[in-house]
């Protein structure tokens, strides 16, 4: 299972990378970052890009900065960078907890945060994170910079609104409120497998009631997203079994479930119910 032939370009600067991408995009040119998702599909020859723009040498794309409001993650930042919290803000602990669920250790040594977003696998943990936290994706091309909100970024299975000549140069995650709670739960068959459903939740407490609830769901539909029907079940309620169950049921009813030979619609809905509730339970620990 060897990939089809391609030309590998190795730009050293962002400008060079964008210019190269502009040249080759029309001939199925793609970005090579971590390669942990792209190379397998090339091995299966499901993708036969004629050009790869290898951004691993591009200066400036390895940015990982916290300016007090936003965590900015550059295109070359790898999953392993998040193993330990990268900020004292609760977002750091959230990303560290989620990161542990991504594939396996050696994959995390190479795979990149932005690469996962651009690849847009429905069960990607970072895609779920970006969608839940309303991240902003920063796409660059020779024509300039475009900021795309997460809710508009994901466009179906393995599909985003990135144009073929755009590089996802960085993603901006808003820091969480200092008192934010978070919870995450995913279900898969074996350790490290693709999640069959996953949920990321955050909220704050005001007078003992939940406010600003975010309930994100991944692996259950073509794209990850926040489920407003579930959030409605949480806001103004006391955290606990009743509200958590209601949120799970609401999410389960609200989705257009992905189906495959392992998971029919009924089972997917079962799982959604469970992962949302358990993510909320996790937020209490």
């Amino acid at each position, binding site marked *: 299972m060897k990939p089809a032939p391609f030309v590998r370009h190795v730009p050293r600067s962002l400008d060079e990378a964008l210019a190269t991408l502009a040249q080759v995009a029309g001939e199925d040119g793609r970005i090579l970052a971590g390669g942990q998702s792209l*190379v397998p599909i090339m091995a299966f020859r499901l993708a036969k890009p004629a050009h790869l723009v290898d951004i691993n040498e591009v200066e400036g794309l390895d940015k990982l900065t916290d300016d007090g409001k936003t965590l900015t993650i550059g295109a070359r930042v790898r999953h392993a960078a998040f193993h330990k919290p990268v900020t004292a803000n609760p977002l750091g602990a959230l990303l560290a907890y989620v990161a542990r669920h991504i594939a396996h250790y*050696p*994959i995390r040594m*190479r795979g990149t945060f932005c690469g996962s977003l651009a690849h847009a696998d429905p069960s990607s943990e970072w895609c779920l994170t970006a969608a839940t936290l309303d991240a902003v994706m920063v796409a660059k091309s020779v024509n300039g910079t475009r900021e795309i909100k997460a809710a508009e970024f994901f466009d179906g299975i393995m599909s985003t609104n990135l144009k073929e000549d755009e590089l996802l140069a960085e993603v901006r995650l808003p820091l969480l409120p200092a008192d934010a709670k978070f919870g995450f739960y995913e279900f898969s068959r074996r350790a490290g497998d693709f999640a069959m459903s996953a949920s990321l939740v955050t909220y704050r407490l005001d007078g003992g009631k939940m406010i600003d609830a975010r309930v994100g769901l991944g692996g259950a539909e073509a794209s990850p997203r926040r489920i407003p029907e579930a959030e409605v079940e949480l806001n103004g309620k006391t955290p606990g079994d009743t509200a958590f169950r209601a949120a799970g049921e609401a999410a389960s009813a609200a989705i257009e479930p992905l189906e495959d030979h392992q998971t029919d619609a009924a089972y997917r809905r079962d799982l959604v119910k469970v992962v949302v509730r358990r993510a909320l339970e996790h937020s209490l620990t």
Partner: protein
Amino acid sequence: MTDKQNITLTINGKDHAITVEPRRTLADAIREDCGQTGTHIGCEHGVCGACTVIVDGAPVRSCLMFAAQAEGKNIRTVEGLASGDTLHPMQQAFMDNHGLQCGFCTPGFLMLAVGVLEREPDISDEALIDVLSSNLCRCTGYQNIIKSVRAAAAEMRK
């Protein structure tokens, strides 16, 4: 150019000047162009881990990197674990604890375990099992692989 290019891979401290296409994976280059066949290929899609090597201190799946990407990096394979006639504690531990049967997945496990333990010598036992679940073995049922790695970890911490 999809044509072959000259690159140099530094494997276990030795330079190999080779000529490969851009699409040549690191795994294939190590095995065929550099003649180090200890690294094995089990799936070519990044799941089984038989091809694990250490690149610049990180255990990675060599089937998911292109050889050209590894130029200028410090690549370590199973052939470089022993120092002359003295086996690495990980190798010795696998032999002492029957951590291998057919031996095909073994180099991948050795490099995974050595790579992770060098980065995190005090890794918890639970996290160690998590790490070992990165690679597949069909012969041992993992029992003695876990035992071997635990024994080697203790030895490496000394």
